[in-house]
């Protein structure tokens, strides 16, 4: 008998080793820069040293004089073809190359095409550009003042305010604050950061000489959406555009947007008739694309004296840089920031966000969460601790008191979300028990008496992922469903093609596991393809932890369609009515007669060799899944820090993450996602920040001073799990990629603030660098 247990098949809940690993382990992956086409040309980009300036002249001849340089493309060239601007995902527009004004430092100014990488770089250095500096606005608050220069005169509305957005009930919130016993208030800044996937961005554009078909290999997380946008902008039909997303060296949201370099490379390929490759340097990557956060929040909580939280109010200024090129669903200019009430049962809330233009590169993109959930969670988890400090409550107790209780699900939040499922007290209790909270409190007390600084920080976050129901969620009008296509071959192996795209999450393994379990085929017999618009079904791509909630669901639904047909085939083979069959142990068997059964492999063979008269041959299905709701993963994190009074250095001694992402497909991969997410939560909490001086010069634009965590700073993460399946997802999964990045920063900040709370410290903005801590210690006479 063929294998039938979930374990043997490699189905749900199994730590199946990754199918994608063998090629990577042997150095045989195919990342963008590994692809080399015959006759390929190279592109390099000339960038602006000024944050805001008029371009008075561009002299290209010195570049063209360099051997190997073939062409220089400027904004004027693109303008002649109507391509100097491109639409952004947020209904704004963005310069591909400027015709006369640069808006931020490192903005693309011209592109050099040459027959080698080195000649292209020589050419870029030789292009002469004359600038006339203009007034620079880096502070979004100044940008909103009446006397600020209008940064985007091309827009109809002559204001630096991009949008004003609000959610919740302002009148009820005002009333709750007026009547509250206790009100706490805090300003918080979540600085600009950069995803810095270890592979930078790049592409190769090629136009077929005969058919005119454009193929673009690019580092994109959303190949289909890119194809549609290219088609809409250029007028080329989608049949003549193929976007291929090869192996991607990390995405984290930074590979969702269309950067000018991609578009210029396409133009260069069209004009030269040769394939053109563009690969960013790290410094270009860090200084010009995919910036996240940059949120200035003023938050208030209203509560009773005994600590029942009544209301939340948040006013936010969001610095979006020079173009609103964020990657949010179209109707959500501030993403899903209205998840701000978090895991707590508040009576009412009101949140508002104003997006603002400044002379910085486009912001609001992503950092393993682009939908502003991280900012919201940071704020609410900090505010709960601040309230605890105000009323002298224990941070854990205060959370238990205010949690949405398990019997309140599905829970309607004051800002309009319907949380699908959760059990917050269970997760927090598990975390407290596992880390030994009471012992830690005692240890802290003893240390304090000895003058040592130790802190314990808690974060009990709720995520909101899986966009999304297509009645509310779309990107440029394209509904945010996702898709899968499964084809079973006669001998019982299968190919699965999905509309989402992996950048390291392991889709080639986990999506095969879904099919394995749903259809009773061994995981080794299933291959998963993705990332090629010519073969994969249409999908919106991988970001915002949406792959499993959407395309994962589509994969299960497509498998179930196949199973329905397989049942008819099995009935035919067993000469019984389909109603007499049941799906048991991954095969169809006659009810009450376990000896009479057909495995999927037998059924698949019959689908091609012995199907009943009147039934179509073959065994395949496609599903486009439109989720009925978002999913709401959650977790309880506890961080323990020690602070060196001599240096201000914060050391994370322990970090425990209890996560609940519903049903788990592959525990090994989920644990890996959480580890990685935790490191990307620790990074902005302690290390990373992109800042600008008053002239708009970037500070920290290379890996020398934009500090990614190394193995030395990163602690040995501890993880654990509770499982509360999503009631509306076909197999109960919720998505996990971003949970840890969202949940970790406030746990770390809460721990640091806790270590210093007896000195009167109530809040510290991230990143909490040793210098910041040392200054605080010095101010309070606690430095050594």
């Amino acid at each position, binding site marked *: 008998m063929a294998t039938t247990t979930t374990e043997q098949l490699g189905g749900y809940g199994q730590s199946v*080793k*990754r199918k*994608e*690993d*063998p*090629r*990577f*382990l*042997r*150095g*045989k*992956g195919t*990342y963008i*820069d*590994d692809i*080399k086409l015959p006759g390929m040309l190279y592109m390099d980009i000339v960038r602006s040293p000024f944050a805001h300036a008029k371009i008075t002249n561009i002299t290209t001849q010195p570049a063209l004089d360099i*051997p190997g340089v073939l062409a220089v493309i400027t904004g004027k060239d693109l303008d002649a073809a109507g391509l100097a601007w491109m639409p952004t995902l947020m209904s704004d527009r963005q310069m591909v190359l400027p015709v006369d004004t640069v808006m931020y430092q490192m903005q693309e100014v011209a592109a050099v095409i040459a027959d080698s*990488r*080195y000649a292209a770089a020589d050419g870029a250095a030789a292009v002469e550009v004359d600038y006339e500096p203009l007034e620079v606005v880096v502070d979004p608050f100044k940008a909103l003042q009446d006397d600020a220069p209008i940064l985007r005169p091309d827009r109809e509305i002559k204001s630096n305010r991009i949008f004003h957005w609000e959610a919740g009930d302002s009148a009820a919130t005002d009333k709750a604050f007026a009547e509250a016993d206790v009100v706490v208030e805090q300003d918080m800044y979540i600085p600009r950061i950069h*995803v*810095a*996937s*270890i*592979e*930078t961005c790049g592409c190769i554009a090629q136009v077929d000489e005969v058919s005119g078909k454009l193929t673009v290999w690019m580092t994109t997380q959303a190949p289909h959406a890119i194809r549609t946008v290219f088609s809409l902008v250029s007028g080329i039909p989608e049949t003549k555009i193929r976007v291929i997303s090869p*192996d*991607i*060296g*990390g*995405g*984290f949201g930074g590979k969702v947007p269309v950067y000018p370099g991609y578009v210029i490379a396409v133009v260069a390929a069209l004009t030269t008739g040769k394939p053109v490759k563009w690969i960013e*340097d*790290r*410094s270009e990557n860090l200084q010009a694309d995919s910036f996240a956060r940059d949120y200035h929040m003023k938050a208030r909580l209203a509560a009773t004296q005994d600590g029942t939280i009544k209301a939340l109010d948040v006013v936010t200024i969001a610095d979006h840089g020079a173009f609103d090129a964020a990657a949010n669903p179209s109707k959500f200019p501030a993403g899903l920031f209205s998840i701000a009430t978090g895991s707590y049962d508040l009576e009412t809330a009101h949140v508002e966000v104003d997006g603002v233009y400044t002379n910085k590169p486009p912001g609001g993109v992503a950092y393993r969460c682009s939908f502003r959930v991280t900012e919201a969670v940071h704020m609410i988890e900090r505010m709960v601790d601040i309230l605890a400090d105000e009323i002298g409550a224990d941070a854990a107790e205060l959370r238990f008191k205010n949690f949405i209780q398990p019997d309140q699900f599905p829970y309607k939040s004051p800002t309009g979300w319907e949380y699908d499922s959760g059990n917050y007290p269970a997760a927090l209790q598990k975390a407290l028990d596992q880390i030994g909270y009471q012992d830690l409190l005692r240890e802290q007390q003893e240390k304090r008496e000895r003058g040592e600084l130790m802190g314990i920080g808690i974060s009990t976050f709720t995520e909101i992922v899986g966009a999304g129901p297509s009645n509310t969620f779309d990107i440029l009008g394209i509904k945010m469903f996702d898709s899968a296509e499964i084809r079973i071959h006669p001998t019982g192996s299968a190919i699965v093609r999905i509309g989402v795209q992996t*950048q*390291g*999450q*392991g889709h080639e393994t986990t999506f095969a596991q879904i099919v394995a379990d749903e259809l009773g085929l061994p995981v080794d017999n299933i291959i998963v393809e993705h990332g090629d618009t010519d073969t994969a079904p249409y999908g919106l791509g991988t970001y915002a932890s949406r792959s499993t909630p959407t395309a994962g669901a589509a994969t299960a639904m497509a498998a179930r369609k196949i199973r329905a047909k397989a049942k008819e085939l099995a009935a035919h083979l067993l000469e019984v009515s389909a109603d007499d069959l049941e799906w048991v142990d991954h095969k169809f068997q006659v009810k009450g007669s376990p000896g009479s059964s057909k495995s999927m492999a037998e059924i698949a063979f019959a689908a091609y060799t012995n199907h009943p008269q009147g039934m179509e041959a073959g065994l395949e299905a496609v599903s486009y899944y439109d989720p009925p709701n978002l999913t709401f993963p959650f977790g309880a994190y506890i961080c323990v820090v020690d602070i060196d009074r001599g240096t201000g250095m914060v050391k994370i001694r322990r970090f425990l993450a209890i996560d609940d992402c519903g049903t788990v497909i592959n525990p*090994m*991969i989920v*644990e*890996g996602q*959480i*580890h*990685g*997410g*935790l*490191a*990307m939560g620790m990074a902005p909490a302690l290390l990373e920040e992109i800042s600008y001086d008053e002239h708009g010069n970037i500070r920290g634009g*290379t*890996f*020398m001073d934009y500090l*990614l965590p*190394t*193995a*030395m700073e*990163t602690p*040995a*993460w501890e993880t654990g799990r509770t499982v509360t399946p999503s009631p509306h997802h076909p197999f109960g999964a919720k998505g996990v990629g971003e949970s840890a990045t969202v949940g970790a920063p406030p746990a770390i900040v809460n721990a640091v603030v806790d270590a210093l709370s007896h000195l009167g410290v109530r809040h510290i903005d991230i990143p909490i660098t040793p210098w910041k801590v040392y200054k605080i210690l010095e101010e309070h006479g606690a430095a050594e």
Partner: protein
Amino acid sequence: MQTLPVTVTVNGDEHTAEVEPRLLLVHFIRENLGLTGTHIGCDTTSCGACAILYDGKPIKSCTMFAVQANGHDLQTVEGLANGPTLHPIQDGFFQEHGLQCGFCTPGMMMVASALLEQNPAPTDLEIREAISGNLCRCTGYVNIVRSIQHAASAMRAEESVAAD
């Protein structure tokens, strides 16, 4: 354009080429030799995606000119496996989920293999120190440390079998 001759042994094979003196070793390996397993992740010698072994010692191949490697012995990720058999370090990364996007992985494995040559029984901290010049954005490092420990014990077991 002036060129200079360079002869290197890479994964046991000798290669000779005429190259521009400014050609970076990593570009020589990737572009001239077509060994694209060695990656490039930065322009400031910070990430280690380009790490290879140079006469058995780990170096960042983005920070050396190809001509400087003239006459030297290089090893890249493509030279780790013995035909179809993975090197224990590769198997360790496979077993312990030490990679996600895989971009940092070749550099990590080259540095780790050099460490284990020198120190067959490293502590976790020694492993963390050894890979502190290699950035990984995906894994949070814990599974990389486990992978290297996995390889270390496999290699020790192999050694003791060989010694018996």
